[in-house]
């Protein structure tokens, strides 16, 4: 019985936090988000060298063979500084290959994913706010030397930065993931509130792939990957939530109004306390969900829905209160608090909003 982190995991957390502070501080985050590529290959190479991209990839395929709980340490710590690099997308693409790929695909692709030389992402659903196999409408049809694809995948995270995209389609034999190279598809950037999480639509009409670039995917595998996506998102919500709480709490100690620090007023300090209660609570649920990915697959759906169901609305409120308690300065573009509020908006619907997850909790709980 031990619901805590190992010494290695704590060291990893320290390493990520230190690296992010030094190599990717907020001015750098803003610079990357404002650049045309919305990506930074030098920084990507550095984190690849640190091993963060191969954490959950088996050693036989060039990774470190660790677990999702280790990955969430990195995602959480990187999200404290809103690091805009596609670490989560890379991890989800690796999970997709590990879950749906055959031995050859694993040995061909995973080493390049672990080393960061292939930047990858996934796109599952084609409808906004609908988590269901029926929400996948893109198609793959058999052709002479493989498959020809049809449809548009909207809202694909980090699509513009990726070299390869694993996109859910309906194939001749059911659901599948089509692996496409970015040069073969039309990618259109979709500007959103959160510039640190670039999103794009991917047009697949007429794109052809060879037969071994289509990975069959069962509904259970789709559900598993969706749950992994929710775990990754929630881990980032923990880090980003902690950062804006810290920022707001520090501000409340320094900002003097009516002759006192505003943190002395219960109208302020009680909101800070409520932010803390919610953050700590979805933190606990998030760690348990991350542990479940590797160690309790049967309980994963419930664990994920408890975590993401709680975090979705709680982080959104933390974002609002974080900005709100700052007063007008929090509303200012050059101040960082607002970037966290935007992250909370991004995270809220990602891999299921609170209604989706609460409905699932009710169903899994026998209602």
């Amino acid at each position, binding site marked *: 019985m031990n619901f805590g982190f190992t010494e290695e995991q704590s060291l990893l957390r320290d390493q990520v936090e230190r690296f992010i502070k030094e190599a990717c501080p907020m001015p750098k985050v803003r610079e990357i988000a404002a650049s045309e590529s919305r990506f930074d290959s030098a920084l990507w190479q550095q984190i690849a060298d640190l091993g963060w991209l191969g954490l959950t990839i088996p050693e036989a395929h060039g990774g470190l063979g660790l677990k999702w709980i280790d990955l969430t340490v990195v995602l959480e710590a990187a999200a404290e500084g809103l690091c805009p690099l596609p670490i989560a997308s890379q991890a989800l693409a690796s999970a997709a290959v590990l879950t749906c790929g055959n031995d050859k695909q694993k040995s061909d692709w995973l080493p390049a994913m672990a080393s960061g030389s292939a930047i990858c992402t996934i796109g599952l659903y084609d409808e906004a706010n609908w988590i269901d196999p029926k929400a996948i409408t893109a198609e793959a049809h058999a052709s002479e030397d493989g498959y020809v694809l049809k449809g548009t995948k909207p809202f694909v995270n980090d699509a513009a930065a990726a070299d390869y995209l694993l996109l859910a389609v309906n194939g001749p034999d059911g659901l599948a993931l089509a692996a496409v190279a970015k040069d073969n598809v039309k990618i259109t950037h979709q500007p959103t509130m959160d510039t640190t999480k670039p999103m794009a639509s991917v047009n697949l009409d007429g794109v052809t792939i060879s037969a071994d670039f289509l990975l069959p995917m069962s509904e259970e595998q789709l559900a598993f990957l969706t749950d992994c996506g929710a775990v990754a998102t929630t881990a980032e919500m923990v880090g980003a939530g902690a950062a804006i709480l810290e920022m707001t709490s520090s501000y409340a100690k320094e900002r003097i109004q009516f002759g006192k620090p505003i*943190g002395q007023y*219960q109208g302020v300090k009680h909101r800070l306390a409520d932010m803390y209660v919610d953050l700590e609570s979805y933190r606990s649920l998030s760690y348990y969900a991350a542990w479940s990915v590797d160690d309790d697959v049967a309980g994963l759906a419930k664990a994920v829905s408890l975590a993401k169901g709680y975090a979705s609305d709680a982080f959104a409120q933390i974002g609002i209160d974080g900005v709100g308690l700052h007063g007008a300065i929090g509303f200012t573009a050059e101040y960082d608090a607002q970037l966290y509020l935007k992250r909370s908006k991004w995270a809220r619907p990602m891999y299921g909003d609170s209604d989706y997850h609460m409905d699932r909790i009710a169903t899994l709980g026998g209602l």
Partner: protein
Amino acid sequence: MDFDYTASEQSFREEVRSFISDNLPPKKERDKNFLANWLEKVRAKGWVGFAWPKEFGGSEGGLIEQTILREEMALAKAPPLGTSMMGLAWVGPGIMQYGTEEQKRKFIPDILDSKVTWCTGYSEPNHGSDLAAIQCKAELKGDHYLVNGQKIWTTGAPWSQWIILLTRTKFDVESKHDGITCFLVPMDAPGVEVRPIQNMAGDKHFAEIFFTDVQVPVENRLGAEGEGWNVTVSALANERSSIGEVTQMFEKLENLKELVKTTSKQGQPASNDPKVRRTIARFEMKVAAMKFNGLRYLTKQIKGEPLTSETSVNKLHRASLEIEIDDFAVQLMGQAGLQLRGGESAVDGGTWSKSALNWPNVVIGGGTPNIQRNIIAERLLGQPKD
């Protein structure tokens, strides 16, 4: 991170389970001697004061075993391990830490043997949340103190034999935390008058207590004169773990789901109503958060790091759940939900309506939600004090 138990922890769990199955008959089959027998047996097992040092009659049980014991007892809806609840929770630990040898000999065995029930004399008419501002006065008069003053909202006072009493021995102090002194006082001492107060649920659990020239021997002082605040704080720090509580909350949630399945709303099964389903899911998220927060805190304790004010997080969850679950159940049942115990259309014997009126026991006792928020903001986030 792992959620497995060692072989010896697992075998302890088996031991608890088999004890329960051997010694806990169904409610209907329990005779009038049942409780006394049960208390004797759990005492013989060393499960009363399970974590207490052996020299005082405890078992020095580890944190995980303690958790397992509470969890299994809560699951089985077993009677408490000892009836001196406050005695076990903080009076006993307070005496072990601050008491004289004579006090330890005199009071500890009776607490463990469920012979004596204790109540806690903290709140006063003018000082509840602002506990350190108490005014109940104790003056040293040779070999005894003379106590005059009033306590109120004292839970268990109508049936307790002893009270742990917080008084002020010095009024001219720089900090209100100074000059406070703690006493162990028999409730039948001359000059102690208990007037039970009926609460809104109709129960008389708490009371006001008047102290008029009550003579308390010096040997009944707990800790040094003026040290009472430290005694109180360390006693409150001896907080129970929330694990047993969480088990009860999960139990309550299951009862609520059963209620939902058998209730209709606007002619439709309530279990089909999205709002009903999501409300229950929201309760479940909070109870699960309590569980996993509790496990994180337990892990911290196992690693030897002291808990500070983190437990206020779960107290806030508990407080809101305590209010919201019963309130939701009563509302769900419409007019039937209003029926009290004994009413012919009372659902589940009126338990929901009863506890919908009893939430202040948990929500206000031990520090109101706003006090918990102050604790979190000031001690965990470093905000300036009010």
